[in-house]
């Protein structure tokens, strides 16, 4: 369980406990992610991995425990709080508006504009160009930033959402089951983008239950079972079978 990475800690969650009424979803979980690390967060359905991430992204507040982000103890009460800190989450489906163009999606909620009295006049050309360039920089090629997101494949949509998070200076990128609905080829592409993000020093938390995918890109794995952390393991510590066994509880630590 050694943390083999000597990079600075980006986020440290300590003794996080979360109850829903009488149900204990998380029982004092410690979770630390360092700069430039791709961390897979794994667990079966209902194990508590989603709850842990929702605590980090402000969807849930912890019943007990504390969060240190970038060296500061923080209270994250809403998704907006998380975003202000630089925690960007890419959800499976609800990240983009299919009927809107790529650049409008890219800048949605953070539009570049010129203030003319009460009117926020969009700098459309600038946004379109910046969007294209920014996606190009992380290896995502689009035909045109004017294309509607609805015309893109699932993998392309994920990549736009990832590119957007990187562009807006995310300090921590969380990907919630990014590959679960994708074809094999598409998944490969998304995994490449994750590696690109890592190369830029951006830490990534990658939530999945597909052991294959995490084996390829993750530096370390945290496994959660029944609201408790089973452990954090470095790449190469475990075989794929070991991971699967730890997730299901077929094997204890």
């Amino acid at each position, binding site marked *: 369980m050694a943390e083999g990475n000597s990079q600075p800690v980006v986020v440290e969650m300590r003794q996080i406990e979360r109850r829903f009424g009488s149900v204990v979803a998380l029982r004092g979980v410690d979770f630390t992610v360092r700069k430039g690390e791709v961390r897979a967060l794994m667990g079966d359905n209902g194990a508590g991995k989603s709850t842990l991430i929702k605590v980090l992204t402000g969807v849930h507040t912890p019943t007990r425990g504390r969060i240190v982000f970038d060296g500061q103890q923080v209270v994250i009460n809403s*998704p*907006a709080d998380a*975003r202000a800190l630089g925690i960007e*989450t890419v*959800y499976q489906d*609800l*990240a*983009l*508006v*299919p*009927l*809107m163009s790529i650049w*409008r999606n890219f800048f*949605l*909620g*953070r*539009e570049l*504009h010129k203030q003319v009295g009460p*009117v*926020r*006049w*969009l700098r*459309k050309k600038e946004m379109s160009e910046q969007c294209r360039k920014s996606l190009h920089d992380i290896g995502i090629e689009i*035909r*045109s930033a*004017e*294309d*509607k997101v609805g015309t893109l494949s699932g993998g392309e949509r994920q990549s736009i959402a990832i590119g957007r998070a990187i562009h807006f200076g995310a300090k921590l990128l969380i990907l919630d089951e990014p590959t679960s609905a994708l074809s094999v080829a598409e998944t490969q592409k998304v995994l490449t983008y994750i590696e690109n993000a890592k190369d830029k020093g951006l830490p990534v938390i990658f939530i999945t239950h597909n052991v294959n995918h995490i084996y390829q890109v993750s530096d370390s794995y945290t496994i959660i079972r029944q609201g408790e952390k089973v452990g954090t393991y470095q790449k190469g510590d475990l075989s794929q079978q070991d991971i699967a066994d730890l997730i299901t509880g077929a094997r204890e630590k």
Partner: protein
Amino acid sequence: MDTIVRIRHRLADASELVVLISFLLVFLFFSIRAENFLSLVSLTNILTIASIKGIFVVGVAMLMISGEFDLSVGSILAVATFVFALSLEAGTAPLAALVLALAVSAVLGGINGLIVIRTGIPSFIATLGTMLAFRGIARAIGGADFARFTGEMPALFTGLNGEFTFINRLAVPAGSARMAIIWFLLFAVLAAVVMRNTRFGSWVYATGGSRAAAIAQGVKTKNVIAVNYIVTGLLAGFAGIVQFASRPAVDPLRGEGWELTAVAACVIGGIWLSGGYGTIVGAAVGMLLLQMVEQGLILLGVDVQLFQATIGLILILAVISNTYLSRQ
């Protein structure tokens, strides 16, 4: 290469395409078949009447793009007109009466917005309720009777809905072009520019297109919806006042059924019932098309009952073709 790409985007984005083509075909049809259709009196009549309804269609279109309905526009229009008429008759200065009526319209629109935002019930139901409630208010303040303005026409009326005599006298019988046309044009262009070029416009499309995604990106969807309801209320009230300014009498049933005309105009104009797609220009042309059909059928001597059936048929055909095109 670049131009080909651009043309493709233009076409893919042209949600108004169906309504524009339909408009031209229907126009052509009536021009050939209906005697006197291409006369000044007929064309200005279409424009002026379509424009009065078009003023609130602009608001309803913005609401529908943000994913919400407003079935209460006809009732708000009636309340505003009664407030305007009764305060004028009570001796209020015309401008003060106008401001008062518009303030009431904004409040009624705001009530719609508040109900939809706070309760989360579907706006179709919420505004069906306020449609009945506001109609009740209109009846109550009017004493279930007509309200007329019998004094000398104030100068304000000319600005609101004065005649363009220089156009109307170009032919015999005289035309009926009025200021309403300018108001409609003004609001439609203004709204179209806002929807395309401002942050608010982008947020309206996002709110209707995928509310969860919009919220996740920090779009204040509730503000968007509230603003749209208030704007729609204001436009409905203003439309009523403009109409009153040309013929200063109002009955308790004023505006009844117009809420559905507005929805029909929007849908024919290419706006999706589910929101997120369509344009103000499309809805505006949709309104002109509906009014043109009404006028054309009257000129053909078609039964009034058949008129509604025709509108229904056009509505269904428009939805089918829009759905087909948007799959491409």
